[in-house]
């Protein structure tokens, strides 16, 4: 008699990348179309998220309808510039560079107590000011590049990197962005480098977050699906690690929402009066 053991079913973060790429390409095309845009603009940092977003935009619209922006500060790593140019060249996209140093340093000079953390946020918001202005100049819709892991961790500048109206990567964990990036042909140097927000010299994402993306994403997927801690621990994750991930998620729900409005009426927007964002009779 043959004995056959069924494999244990586990949550998997590995996706069908060609299918995902096709889906996100159509998503970009349609979301731009009803908003009246034929072009997209992407602020490329030299990192994998913006490179993947740029690659998707080129698939959706063609390289001539995509504008890349590189928005360095004098403290930005030289590697960021090198990689931003490499990504734009790889996908055949025109890249405009705007140095945000004078904008940021102008305010910094007036603000002697500015901490590195506050200055980092200032850079992110300065970049959004430029991105949205250039959006008007090019009549190109700004694309967001934030991934699901950083959104869940609140690891972004509020009304900064989360500001663009259309984001193809926001439901993909960081490790999934790596998978998609490889499929789309994002240069290996960009996919494999240590992730960093590059707002403070020497900074890395995983240093800031205190957990590796490869581990965080598995914990997040199980936590969001409602698995109890004991189940996640049995997969080989430490209780402290799981708690750190859950705390980050639960300290930042406000950051993934619009500002809180006091409700007084039965026509309060978004509470009683509910219309989808694409509702346009």
């Amino acid at each position: 008699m043959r004995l056959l053991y069924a494999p244990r079913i586990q949550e998997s973060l590995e996706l069908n990348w060609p299918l995902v790429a096709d889906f996100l390409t159509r998503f970009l095309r349609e979301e731009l179309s009803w908003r009246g845009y034929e072009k997209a603009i992407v602020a490329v940092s030299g990192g994998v998220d913006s490179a993947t977003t740029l690659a998707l935009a080129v698939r959706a619209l063609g390289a001539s309808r995509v504008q890349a922006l590189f928005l360095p500060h004098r403290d930005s790593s030289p590697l960021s510039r090198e990689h931003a140019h490499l990504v734009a060249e790889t996908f055949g996209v025109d890249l405009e560079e705007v140095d945000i140093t004078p904008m940021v340093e102008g305010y910094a000079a007036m603000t002697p107590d500015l901490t590195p953390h506050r200055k980092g946020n200032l850079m992110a918001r300065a970049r959004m000011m430029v991105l949205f202005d250039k959006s008007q100049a090019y009549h190109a819709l700004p694309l967001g590049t934030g991934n699901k892991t950083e959104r869940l961790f609140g690891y972004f500048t509020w009304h900064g990197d989360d500001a663009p109206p259309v984001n193809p990567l926001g439901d993909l964990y960081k490790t999934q962005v790596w998978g998609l990036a490889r499929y789309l042909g994002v240069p290996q140097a960009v996919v494999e480098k240590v992730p960093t927000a590059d707002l403070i010299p020497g900074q890395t994402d995983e240093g800031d977050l205190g957990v590796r993306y490869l581990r965080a994403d598995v914990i997040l997927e199980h936590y969001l699906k409602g698995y109890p801690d004991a189940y996640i621990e049995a997969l080989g994750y430490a209780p402290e690690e799981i708690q750190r991930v859950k705390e980050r998620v639960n300290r930042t729900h406000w950051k993934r929402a619009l500002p809180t409005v006091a409700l007084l009426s039965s026509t309060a927007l978004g509470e009683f009066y509910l219309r989808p964002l694409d509702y346009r009779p």
Partner: protein
Amino acid sequence: MVARSLVRHAILQFRPEKARPKENLARLGEHLQALRPHTPEVVVLPEAALTGYFLQGGVRELALTRHELLELLSQVHKEVGWEGLLDVVVGFYERDEGAYYNSAAYLELPHRVVHVHRKVFLPTYGVFDEERYLARGRRVEAFNTRFGRVAILICEDFWHSITSAIAALDGAEVIYVPAASPARGFQGERPENVERWRTLARAVAAEHGLYVVLSSLVGFEGGKGMSGGSLVVGPEGRLLAEAPLFEEAALIVDLDRERIPPVRYDSPLLSDLEAALPLLLPDLERVLGREGR
């Protein structure tokens, strides 16, 4: 009247503009023009085809009475210059007095509303929120058309095997399923929801020996990509035609009613169900808590 054996269907996998019924009717007219040389007798449209699916409170502004629906589609029939009758199955948000329903109508254009099915199973979980805005239908029934006896089930209605069992027992030879299904689960060859539809449609068709015609919406609605993948399954459970994912398409399929009796003779599951179901009714009553619990 003896219904004909072969009935040509066009399953129109449609992408509506959100909340713009006028533009959508104009586009439907263009599609009918394109379909006309292929001489369909029944055109099957998806759920919420004239407005898009996710409307939230906008349902109240865009819902139609069944007579307004007939009037609008008869106007399209006239503008297109369609010669003779055209049967249309179409999903729409229905207004009736003060209540709103997720409905699908079987129309015989340009003259009459043959039947309206109101969705019974209103998904209100995850990305879905139907019961917040809509009232629940209370009936599943087959009805007669000029091409034979059929039934309509809308989207989640079809995910519960009890509804197609009722429709089959009521004599339906075709179950039309207008649907709107946001793609999710991207691990496999196709999105998980698409796989589920294929499995279900084949299982239901084979169990009851009837045709299943799924017409599934396409287009992105606020990031949610309606999957498409409309299909037609024959009475033996074989996939006869399948539309691509995510884009507009039309399937032209001749449904052959003569195939049903031989298939049911080989696999008489429906007559078994008819005979044995009464035996199970006391248990059904029991598990529903109506007696002895």
